[in-house]
């Protein structure tokens, strides 16, 4: 589903954010990306979202060659990916409902169909009673959950999440992970950047460790007892 093949990303100033990264995440796989800040986690997610393009190597996600994509291909590609952003990226002049409905509106869903999906997604993150609120009236954790609802509402084939549990307490974090695992069980490919070591340890998922832009380790889940 996502395949990095000797991918490097150098910025114009010569700084190398990622160097020679190779790994593959397949359908129905749930992988954490971890490492210190500046290790290249966000760059890696940006490459998959086609926000940046690789300097060298080949990157294929969801069958799209991300080395060479047109503007319209990028838009279509992003519609297949649900992304939870670290800074939420919500529209502050639209209600929670409208924020979550945005990907469906872009894809041209029928309003009735969209309404059902939006409510199902909001229900999953426990915000059904806040659908008329505006993001500014919500706590950081609630805003993050709106972002998660928006990421899953379109039933994407890939879910990317950048520190999705950063603002959440352990109970809510566990809840969000349960939602992610539900999607994993139906074949969605999940890539979650996090440095919540306890959470990663508890979930026992594949863990890709980055350090200084290099792939330090690719730990498979421990065999279940």
């Amino acid at each position, binding site marked *: 589903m996502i395949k990095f093949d000797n991918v490097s990303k150098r910025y114009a100033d010569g700084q190398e954010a990622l160097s020679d990264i190779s790994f593959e995440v397949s359908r129905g796989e749930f992988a954490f990306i971890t490492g210190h800040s500046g290790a290249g986690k966000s760059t890696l997610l940006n490459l998959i979202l086609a926000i940046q393009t690789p300097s060298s190597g080949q990157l294929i996600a969801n069958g799209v060659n991300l080395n060479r994509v047109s503007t319209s291909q990028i*838009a279509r590609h992003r519609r297949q990916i649900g992304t939870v952003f670290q800074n939420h990226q919500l529209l502050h002049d639209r209600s929670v409902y409208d924020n979550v409905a945005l990907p469906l509106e872009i894809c041209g869903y029928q*309003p009735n169909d969209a309404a059902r999906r939006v409510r199902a997604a909001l229900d999953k993150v426990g915000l059904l009673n806040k659908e008329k609120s505006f993001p500014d009236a919500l706590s950081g954790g609630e805003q993050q959950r709106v972002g998660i609802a928006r990421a899953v509402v379109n039933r994407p084939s890939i879910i990317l999440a950048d520190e999705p549990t950063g603002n959440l307490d352990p109970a809510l974090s566990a809840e969000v992970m349960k939602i992610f695992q539900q999607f994993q069980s139906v074949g969605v490919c999940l890539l979650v950047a996090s440095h919540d070591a306890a959470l990663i340890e508890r979930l026992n998922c594949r863990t890709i460790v980055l350090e200084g832009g290099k792939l330090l380790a690719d730990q498979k889940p421990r065999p279940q007892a």
Partner: protein
Amino acid sequence: MNATKRRNDNANQPRVKRNTRAGQSASFVDLVKLHRRIARDSASRLLQTPASSLVTLFVVAVALLLPALLFGLNSNLASLLAGFQNSAQVTLYLQDSVSEADGEEISNDLLTRNDIENAYYVSPSQALDEFGASSGLEDLLTEMTANPLPGAIVLTPSDVSSVAVDELARQLQKLSQVDVVQIDSLWLQRLAAISNLVSAIGRVLAVIVILGLFFVVGNTIKLAIENRKAEILVIKLVGGSDMYAARPFLYTGLLYGLGGGVLATLLQGIVLATFNSNLEVLMRLYESDFQLRGFGLMSSLLIIVAGATVGWTAALMASLRHIRAINP
């Protein structure tokens, strides 16, 4: 129906594969509803900043008004000319040697030509009587021993365009009995030439105005896009195309064009009413009841449609250019 039902069944179930082609699952009615919502949203945004929206609207309206007024005045001039054109006359002054009987005969011969609507002969003595009556010099004229006036044929061409009248005059000049051909509508031709010049100026002005409108609307849209940069960024991040992000701005441009067009037709009504009250005084002196006419329904619609088209197109060009530049 089946497709809808299937979607309903698994609405709450995550699913990997689905068709994400935009517009595929929404019906035409839904699309209309969506566009109506976006249009309403664009309109309410304009109302949020009433002062600056109004200024832009006025600029658009005045820009549309200038060429529209020029065209309007010119069409009034044209209709005024058309009223006179029916009286376009050509006078053939005959040689002194032509007798009254011959003159009558030539006049009757001319009537058979199909490029001549009407022709009548004026004998030298008739001409003298008419001249005496219209000049008030009858007493003086009776003392004259010889009549200095020639016989003449006054004719009305069937085609009153200046080209046709010129051609007719040229042909009639060749007749041996004809001394001088005089076209009485020379001043009319001059006026028509002025009218053509005015309409040419109007066309040039219209082109300049359209370019100006592109600049004004484009710049307004550019500012609106700057203000909503964060929103466009989010839309792009979740897979919205440039065209999707541009939609609200297209409606903004359309509304400016439409509103400007409507305002322009209202303003021209005011302008013409002002002119008419002055014109009435002038025309009374000329014993005419001529009045400036408004643009009429079709012309007003044309201004509004032109405004809307320019507004929408300018918004399309500006928004695609500026939205393309916004990237995460």
